[in-house]
C-alpha cells in the first residue's frame, strides 16, 4: 500500500514518455544493432535461397517453425491473461494489464513473420490470402495452414483493439500535458476523447465484450497452431491432446515472458512504486500452476506413447529420452520443472522478484526447447528408418532467432516511449473506493454545503 496523489501518478507514469534518457538510446542502439543483423541474415537468405539454412530432407520444418510456435505461445501472456483478470475483476491486475497486452501484439507480429520467412520466397506471402486470383487458384480452406491465417488474423486484430481501446484516455492525458509537435500528435491519437460518462461507459462495455470474446479466440489460436502438427500422420504429432497441451504450454511461456518484461520495465523505467513484489508473487503463483499442468501434459503424452509401444513413435520417443536429442530433452525438463518448481513453490523464493524472474528465464528457454523437440525429432525419425535425417541450424537461422528476441525488446522500449506502459486511468480507478451508499450525497443535498470531503486534497491511497 502506498500513497500517491494523482499528480504524482501522472508524473511517474508520464516520465518515460516525456523524458528521454541516455539509457534509452543505449538500449535502442544495442537492440537495433541486433535487429539489423537479423534483417541482414534474412536478406542474405532471400538473396541466396533457403539452401543457407540447415534444413534438409526429411527435416523441412525447423528453426522458423519453432520460432513461430514459440512466439505465438508467448503472445498468450498478454491478452488472455489480461482478459481473464479483467473478467475476474482482480484488483492487482491494473498495473500489469497493459504490459501484458503489448506483449501479445508484438509477439504475434514477430511470430506471424516466421511462416512468411519460412516460405523461402516471402514476397509471395499474399498467396495465402484468399482473394479472387486471376489464376483461379484459391487457398485450400481444408488445410490446417489456412486456419492459421484466419486464427492469427483474428487474434491480432482483437488484441490490437483490446490494447488500443484503454489507451485512448491515456493519450488524452498526455495531450493535456505536452506542447509543440507532441501536442499535435497526441491530439490526433486521443481521437477527441474528453471523458464524458457516455465515452467511459462505451469504453467499459467494449472492454467487457472484448474480454469475453478474446479468451476463446486466444485458446483457438494455439489450438490451431497445435493442429498444424496434429493433423499430420507424423510420429508423436498425431495426438488428440495436442490442442490443450499447446494452449497450456503457451500460457506457461507467456506468463514467464510477461514476468521478464515487467522486471525489465520496472528497472529501466523506475516503476518500483507501481510494479510491486505482490504482482510478481501473484504471477509466480500462476506460473507455478501452469508448471504443474505442463508436467502433467508432458507425462501424459510420453506415457501413452510408451505404453502404446508403436515402433515409429518409439523411435522418436527414444531419440529424445536417451538418443541424440536427450541432452536437449532433459535440459527442457530441468528448465521447465526441476528449476522453476521449487523456486515458485517455496514462498521464500517466490516472494522475491529475483526468484520469480530466474524461474521465468528458465521457463522461456525450456519452452523454446520444447517447441524444437516437438518438431525436429519427429521429422527426422519418420516411418522409414532408411530416410531418417538430421538437422543442425546455421548462423543464418541462429541470427534470425536472436534478432527476433531483440526485436521484441526494441518494440517494447519504443512503445513505452510513445504510450504510458501502465494504464494511468485504470490505476486511478483502483485508488478510489466506490460510494458506500448510492445517493449518499443526495440525502444531505438540502443541508448547507461547501466543505469538501476527506479526499478534498486530492490524496489517493493506491491499493495496488
Amino acid at each position, binding site marked *: 500500500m502506498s500513497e500517491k496523489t*494523482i*499528480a504524482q501518478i*501522472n508524473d511517474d507514469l508520464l516520465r518515460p514518455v516525456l523524458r528521454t534518457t541516455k539509457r534509452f538510446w543505449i538500449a535502442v542502439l544495442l537492440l537495433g544493432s541486433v535487429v539489423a543483423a537479423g534483417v541482414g541474415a534474412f536478406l542474405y537468405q532471400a538473396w541466396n535461397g533457403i539452401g543457407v539454412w540447415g534444413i534438409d530432407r526429411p527435416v523441412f520444418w525447423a528453426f522458423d517453425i519453432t520460432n513461430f510456435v514459440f512466439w505465438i505461445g508467448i503472445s498468450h501472456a498478454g491478452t488472455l491473461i489480461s482478459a481473464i483478470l479483467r473478467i475476474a475483476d482482480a484488483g492487482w491486475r491494473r498495473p500489469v494489464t497493459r504490459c501484458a497486452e503489448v506483449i501479445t501484439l508484438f509477439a504475434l507480429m514477430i511470430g506471424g513473420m516466421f511462416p512468411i520467412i519460412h516460405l523461402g520466397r516471402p514476397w509471395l506471402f499474399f498467396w495465402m490470402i484468399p482473394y479472387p486470383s486471376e489464376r*483461379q*487458384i*484459391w487457398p*485450400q*480452406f*481444408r488445410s490446417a495452414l489456412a*486456419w492459421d491465417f*484466419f*486464427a492469427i*488474423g*483474428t487474434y491480432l*486484430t*482483437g488484441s490490437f*483493439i483490446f490494447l488500443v*481501446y484503454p489507451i*485512448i484516455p491515456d493519450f*488524452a*492525458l498526455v495531450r*493535456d*500535458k505536452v506542447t509543440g509537435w507532441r501536442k499535435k500528435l497526441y491530439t490526433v491519437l486521443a*481521437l*477527441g*476523447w*474528453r*471523458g*464524458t*460518462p*457516455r*465515452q*467511459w*461507459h*462505451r469504453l*467499459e*462495455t*467494449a472492454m467487457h*465484450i*472484448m474480454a469475453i*470474446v*478474446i479468451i*476463446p*479466440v486466444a485458446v*483457438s489460436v494455439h489450438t490451431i497452431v497445435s493442429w498444424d502438427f496434429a493433423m499430420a500422420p507424423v510420429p508423436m504429432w498425431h495426438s488428440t491432446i495436442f490442442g490443450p497441451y499447446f494452449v497450456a504450454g503457451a500460457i506457461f511461456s507467456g506468463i514467464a515472458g510477461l514476468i521478464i518484461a515487467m522486471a525489465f520495465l520496472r528497472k529501466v523505467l523506475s516503476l518500483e512504486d507501481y510494479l510491486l513484489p505482490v504482482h510478481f508473487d501473484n504471477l509466480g503463483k500462476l506460473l507455478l500452476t501452469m508448471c504443474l499442468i505442463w508436467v502433467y501434459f508432458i507425462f501424459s503424452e510420453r506415457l501413452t506413447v510408451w505404453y502404446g509401444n508403436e515402433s515409429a513413435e518409439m523411435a522418436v520417443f527414444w531419440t529424445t529420452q536417451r538418443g541424440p536429442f536427450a541432452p536437449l530433452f532433459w535440459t527442457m525438463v530441468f528448465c521447465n520443472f526441476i528449476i522453476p518448481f521449487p523456486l515458485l513453490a517455496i514462498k521464500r523464493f517466490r516472494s522475491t522478484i529475483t526468484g520469480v524472474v530466474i524461474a521465468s528465464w528458465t521457463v522461456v528457454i525450456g519452452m523454446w526447447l520444447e517447441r524444437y523437440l516437438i518438431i525436429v525429432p519427429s521429422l527426422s525419425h519418420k516411418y522409414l528408418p532408411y530416410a531418417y535425417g538430421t538437422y543442425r541450424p546455421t548462423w543464418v537461422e541462429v541470427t534470425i532467432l536472436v534478432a527476433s528476441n531483440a526485436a521484441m525488446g526494441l518494440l517494447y522500449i519504443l512503445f513505452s516511449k510513445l504510450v504510458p506502459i501502465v494504464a494511468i*486511468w485504470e490505476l486511478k*480507478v483502483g485508488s*478510489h473506493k*466506490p*460510494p458506500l451508499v*448510492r445517493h449518499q*450525497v*443526495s440525502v444531505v*443535498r438540502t443541508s448547507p*454545503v*461547501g466543505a*469538501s*470531503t476527506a479526499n*478534498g486534497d*486530492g490524496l489517493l491511497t493506491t491499493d495496488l
Partner: protein
Amino acid sequence: MRVLYALYHDPDSAQQAYDSLRANGATPGFNERQIAVLTSEPFDGYDFFQQDHKTVIPWIAALGGLVGGVSGFWFAAYTQAVYPIPTGGMPIVPFYADGIITYELTMLGAILATLISVLITARLPDWRRKFYDAEVSDGKILVGVIDAPDTSRAEVEKRLLEAGAAGVKEFLA
C-alpha cells in the same frame, strides 16, 4: 454553446453539485441532458456518472458475430464448391474444417462490430473544438450546465460553489 462549470477534487463533491443542479426549488431543476460531466476515470456507483449508461452494443456485437459466422461459412463453402478439389473420398465442403473458419470469422465479426459501434456511439474520433478543460487530466471532476438561462446563472454559480468548487468557469463556443 455556453457552459458554466466548476471543477471538484473528489466524487462526493461532484455528486453534491450534480444533485444540487438537478434539485427543484428556486429554479434550477436541470435535467440530465443539460448537465455536463467530464472525468479522468470512471466513477461507477455515482449518479453523476450514470448518464448514457444504457447501450445496445452487446446486441450489435452478437449480430456482428452472426454476420461474421455466416459469411465465414459461405466464404469457405462457396470457394470449395466453385473450385472443387477432390481429395481421396473427403467431402468437397467439409463441415469440421469449415467450422474453424466459421468460428474465427464469428469472433472477428463480433470484434469489428464492437469496434465500429463503440466509435460511433462514443462519437469518436472528433477533433473539432469541444467543451473541455485540461484540468480534468489532473484528476478533477468537471460538473457544469449547458446553455443555462441567464435568469438562473447566479443560482447555478451559487450551487456549484456551495458543493465545494474553488471557482466557476465559463466556456463559450
